[in-house]
């Protein structure tokens, strides 16, 4: 009896399997993330969250299975372009997602635009990608550099910080973040007490720059560092004794969930602004964090959330088109029409720039339990970029 039942199940599974294969070709999603090179860690974080997202929101639409085709960009523009050409021309993917580095995004921009395949950028923050160089085919689910830093200027001016020192690495993202902060802060009546741009990848020691901050004597410093240098900067800031002397504030990657534990007490009191903090108290965020923790044994980060939301964006857009991927323009239009509440709050793509419209969270790092964590001070809802030269 049991045996016959199992034989029947196997036969029926095989039959439906064959029928599905015959009836519906898979929907191919090309994933362009670095699995090696400097951004391999971020690429890995997004890969995990993307897989988790498709597990959560469905790996099949209208009978067509969703198949992820991975390509390693190595965070190098030339490799990224070669890989995206392979994804589009050889693997014939229906949509491309990913890209950590803005240089890679810039390299693939024209090819994607001409190939007319929808691309959802899950990290690269270069303002121009959804500004002067925007394309109807390129959407961004993460952030623009200016979007994150712009709101922090007026907020800090309101809190009585009159004189702020700026610091970031000497590269495009660093300058974009600092300019965004400056424009808001100066318009709100603040003054910039000085600024420093150490060379990227060559700065072993922040000591000389911290000395300049002390000499300038500002109320606060606004900085943009991420990854290893962020850990180093916060630790050196404390070791230099600037803790309690000058208020430290930054684009929130300074205290990313990925490494805030490594900063420990040294991060306490730091102010930050970001599109996501793990402590957001909504059902969607709890669901995301529980899934991520169950699968990988640690908290999900803002990088993971962008990939997770991207999976949902694609699945819901495919549902809206009934699984039809032949009409790429309709698929892109469907993506622009999707709205949902994700882990970071309301999510939608701005039809004017193709950049995400999202809440921003201003937080302070505080002691919590046996560690430190980002505690939200204020939520700035529905932050939207100006078109900045983009006309879609």
């Amino acid at each position, binding site marked *: 009896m049991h045996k016959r039942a199992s034989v029947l199940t196997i036969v029926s599974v095989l039959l439906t399997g064959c029928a599905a294969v015959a009836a519906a070709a898979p929907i191919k999603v090309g994933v362009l993330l670095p699995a090696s090179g400097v951004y391999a860690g971020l690429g890995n974080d997004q890969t995990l969250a993307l897989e988790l997202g498709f597990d959560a929101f469905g790996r099949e639409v209208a009978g067509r299975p969703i198949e992820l085709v991975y390509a390693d960009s190595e965070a190098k523009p030339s490799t990224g372009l*070669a890989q995206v050409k392979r994804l589009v021309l050889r693997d014939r993917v229906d949509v491309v997602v990913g890209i950590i580095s803005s*240089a890679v995004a810039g390299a693939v921009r024209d*090819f994607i635009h001409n190939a007319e395949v929808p691309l959802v950028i899950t990290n690269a923050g270069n303002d121009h990608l959804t500004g002067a160089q925007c394309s109807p085919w390129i959407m961004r689910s993460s952030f623009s550099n200016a979007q994150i830093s712009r709101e922090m200027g007026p907020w800090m001016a309101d809190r009585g910080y009159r004189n702020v020192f700026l610091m970031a690495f000497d590269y495009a993202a660093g300058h974009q973040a600092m300019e965004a902060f400056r424009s808001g802060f100066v318009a709100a009546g603040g003054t910039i007490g000085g600024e420093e741009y150490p060379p990227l990848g060559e700065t072993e020691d922040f000591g000389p720059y911290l000395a300049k901050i002390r000499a300038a004597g500002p109320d606060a410093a606004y900085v943009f560092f991420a990854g290893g240098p962020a850990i180093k900067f916060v630790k050196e800031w404390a070791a230099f004794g600037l803790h309690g002397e000058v208020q430290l504030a930054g684009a929130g990657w300074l205290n990313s969930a990925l490494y805030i534990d490594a900063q420990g007490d040294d991060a306490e009191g730091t102010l930050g602004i970001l599109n996501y903090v793990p402590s957001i108290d909504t059902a969607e965020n709890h669901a995301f964090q529980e899934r991520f923790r169950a699968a990988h044994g640690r908290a999900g980060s803002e990088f993971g959330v962008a990939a997770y939301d991207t999976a949902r964006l694609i699945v819901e857009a495919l549902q809206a088109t009934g699984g039809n991927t032949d009409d790429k323009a309709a698929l892109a239009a469907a993506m622009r029409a999707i709205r949902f509440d994700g882990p970071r709050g309301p999510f939608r793509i701005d039809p004017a720039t193709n950049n995400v419209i999202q809440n921003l969270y201003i937080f302070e790092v505080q002691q919590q339990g046996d560690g430190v964590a980002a505690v939200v001070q204020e939520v700035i809802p529905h932050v939207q970029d100006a078109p900045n030269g983009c006309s879609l």
Partner: protein
Amino acid sequence: MRSRDRWQLPAAALLAAAAAAVWWRADLFTMELLAEVAILAIFTMSLQLLVGVTGMVSLGHAGFLAAGAYTTAAATLFWGWPPAAALVLSVAVAALLAAAAGLFVIRLSGVFFIMITLAVGQMFHAFFFRAQRFGGDNGLAGTPRIDLAALGLDSGAPGTFAAFALICAALVYLLLLLVTRSPFGMMLGAIHQNESRLASLGCPVRRYKLAAFTAAGAVAGVAGALTAQHTGFISPDLAFWTFSGEALIIVILGGSGSLAGAAAGAAVFVLLRDLLSSGSFWSGLSLPPELASHWQLFMGMLFIAVVLAARDGLYGRLAWLIEALHTRRRARR
């Protein structure tokens, strides 16, 4: 040296025929690869003039390629030049920069030459990395391709551009072949073999080396201009020393001393990289597709194997093999 040389033209002809055959049947993606092979071959042949012919091992050659690429981008995007004129300007700028750098670097040799060329290349990288006008580290997109409308062709089509790049590579090959077979090229070969003897014979060695360095830089400028046209995008990575190193590996892999070897090495490198970095290749061998991210490891193992088994590169081994078969047949007769 001379015994190997007789296979130079047949090898090049074979390579050209193979490229033409592939082009005839290629899909869009293969066209992109072909264009990449052609451009990389121009670059590695220019490096061959330094490394294999003159014996100057440069680890900064990518700097001149990047200079050519940035010149093309600047001329077309900022000044509105047509891409063909920009290509000429790119060659001139790359040659000028190579001559200026050459004045200093040719005074050194051996390890010191490697180090100073490395430094020169990195100076280009550092400059472009901070050049906000060119987008800094984000690079700059939008360089147009050469206008072939006069011939009734659209260079935007992958097949047309691949053919254009392949023809450029063939022309560069012929040009460099003429150079190496000219009295000037013979002198470069002699410098390679015994520089001090040549100097004691009263030969202005430095002048020859400077000329070789400048010529190689100019040809690298061609590769740079074509790179900018092909990808439509430039970034400081083009000048980074790892790219120079890659080209050096290709030259050694292909066969030091031979232009056709350098071109063949470029083809092998691009095709192998494409194969090894493709997840479907590894899953086809029923291995985990994640191995695709480690393609450099396998490429490195291949490189070690070639260097151990064939010190004169793939081309050198092949020529040696043919030569050996030839003499055996003649002996039997």
